[in-house]
């Protein structure tokens, strides 16, 4: 299987699970420490709104990677859950006047419910069919969002208030919002790490490597896949919900298929099935979009070229290649 599998499963397996703490290897723990330091320092050095955008997309890519990297399922419609999470959070904050934490929670829950229904349908087929089905279902959500009254159609939901966290801490200042976003990101990152390293996560990896064999061992793989799908979609919803509160806007862009493609690209660039890859991939793509924004449609061309280059020559992604170079698992 080694070089043919969709994930970076071709990495040299660590000789022993030399975990330092919470299932992180020494190298991963060092990387985690670096990431936390970055989170603490970044808003004082860089523009906080930019970092928040980056973290929202990093969380989105992490959620997506939970499926592609650890179960081997390529969902080509994750924008549906990301965008729906954004709409729900925006609607609850603006029209219902809910506090931000409830809005984000609602975004995650609704996206997860949507994921439960869609996942239940999509896991009936495997491989490329799974990708096509998730893409088609996401397109259905897109058309629903174009027509549904609560999304505001072409205008989207605008001027979403950030509100006060727990009704106490007003989030209008970017720095206050930043700490909330950083907290959500870090919490979700650790949660995903925990899921992947749980017995449940081990079964997911077994499904990725060899599903028939996992079935023969007595695991009901469909149930595992569905739960993984729901977790992934709920976290994608949280990411979208957080993003809509940060920018005060929820639009059709976030449910469009191009967004589904972007999250695939971020994860691919960073490294499929790596712990830190999606974060790095999201950082690279978001930064690129930021600097190249004035190029207009050329951004699409560049993204396409990166896709092609990654698939042809660079399948492990940045973190996968780095890990391979340093002979550690990141």
């Amino acid at each position, binding site marked *: 299987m080694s*070089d*043919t*599998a*969709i994930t970076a499963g071709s990495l040299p397996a660590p000789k022993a699970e030399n975990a330092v703490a919470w299932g992180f290897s020494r190298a991963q723990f060092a990387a985690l420490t670096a990431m936390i330091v970055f989170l603490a320092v970044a808003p004082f050095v860089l523009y906080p709104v930019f970092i928040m955008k980056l973290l929202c997309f990093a969380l989105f890519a992490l959620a997506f990677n939970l499926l592609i990297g650890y179960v081997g399922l*390529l969902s*080509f419609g994750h924008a549906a859950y990301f965008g729906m999470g954004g709409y729900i959070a925006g609607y609850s904050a603006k029209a219902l006047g809910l506090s931000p934490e409830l809005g984000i929670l609602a975004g995650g829950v609704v996206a997860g419910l949507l994921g439960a229904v869609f996942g239940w*349908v*999509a896991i*009936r*087929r495997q*491989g*490329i*069919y799974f*990708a*096509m*089905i998730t*893409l*088609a*279902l996401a*397109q*259905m959500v897109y*058309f*629903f969002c*174009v*027509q549904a009254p609560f999304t505001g159609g072409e205008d989207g939901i605008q001027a979403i208030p950030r509100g006060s966290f727990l009704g106490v801490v007003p989030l209008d200042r970017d720095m206050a919002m930043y700490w909330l976003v950083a907290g959500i990101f870090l919490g979700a990152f650790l949660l995903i790490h925990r899921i992947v390293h749980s017995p449940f996560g081990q079964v997911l990896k077994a499904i990725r490597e060899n599903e028939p064999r996992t079935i023969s061992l007595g695991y009901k793989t469909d149930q595992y896949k569905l739960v993984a799908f729901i977790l992934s979609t709920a976290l994608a919803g949280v990411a979208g919900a957080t993003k809509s509160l940060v920018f005060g806007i929820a639009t059709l862009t976030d449910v469009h*298929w191009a967004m589904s*493609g972007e999250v*695939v690209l971020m994860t*691919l660039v960073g490294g499929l099935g790596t712990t830190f890859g999606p974060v790095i991939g999201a950082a690279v793509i978001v930064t690129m979009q930021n600097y190249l924004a004035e190029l*207009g*449609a*050329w*951004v*699409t*061309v560049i*993204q*396409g*070229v*990166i*896709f*092609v280059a*990654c*698939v*042809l020559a660079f*399948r492990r992604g940045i973190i996968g290649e780095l890990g391979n170079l340093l002979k550690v698992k990141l």
Partner: protein
Amino acid sequence: MEDLFGIPAPLLFGQLLLGLINGAFYAMLSLGLAVIFGLLNIVNMAHGALFMMGAFVAWLLLDKLGLGYWWALLLSPFIVGAFGVVLEKLFISRLYKLDHLYGLLLTFGLALVIEGVFRNEFGSSGLPYRIPPELAGSWDLDFMFLPIYRAWVVVFALVACLATWLVIEKTRLGAYLRAATENAPLVQAFGVNVPRMVTLTYGAGVALAALGGVLAAPIYSVNPQMGSNLIIVVFAVVVIGGMGSILGAVLTGFGLGIVEGMTKVFYPEASATVIFVIMVIVLLARPAGLFGRA
């Protein structure tokens, strides 16, 4: 004028015709996807972009070289098909030993590049393409006006699909193709140049998409997004039909086009989503698709 099911007949038949036309494009595109998938095991995400390219090549032939619709109908599939051959040789052929999902990701990247280049060059607004004078005008059928060009598209697409089916099912080349789909190494052992056949199959599937693009050019405005909007629906069509059968792909394509057209008459709000809903129902009832093998 008579009413049918409480709907004015011209409206009903007009939408039926529109549905048939959309169905013609679904059929041609899903046919190409099925042929490519059968032999290459790749979902060609670039199929929509190549359909769009077919339309643009027709427009460019007219604008730059003064070659009209009939030349475009002949040349555009060749040009875009040749482009497809180059794509297969340069990129796609490197992936056959890898997981099929990489093929999907690669062709998605190619689609982004092609679409982006055309958007830079021609903008997002559509370019008009005139109906050829021989096919302009319409027939008065008593119960409706039938624009001649639209009838032409439906008939031509049917003939193209039928011809493809005949080539695959009734000729020696088609027999090789079907054999290679089942077991490529064995066919190669018999002395058939399978890699070349794979390349030409991709080219042919792409040419079929480009042919669809030329047919579509006078109906829709020629614009860079015309392919990507269509291809996602075609994916749903492919899931519904199952990619196992050529005739199945054609029937499903036309059938779903008609269903979509009728939905526009009776419940317009659902017309954009009806095919996806049908896909869900089919997946629940018959996961392998209507014509698929489990």
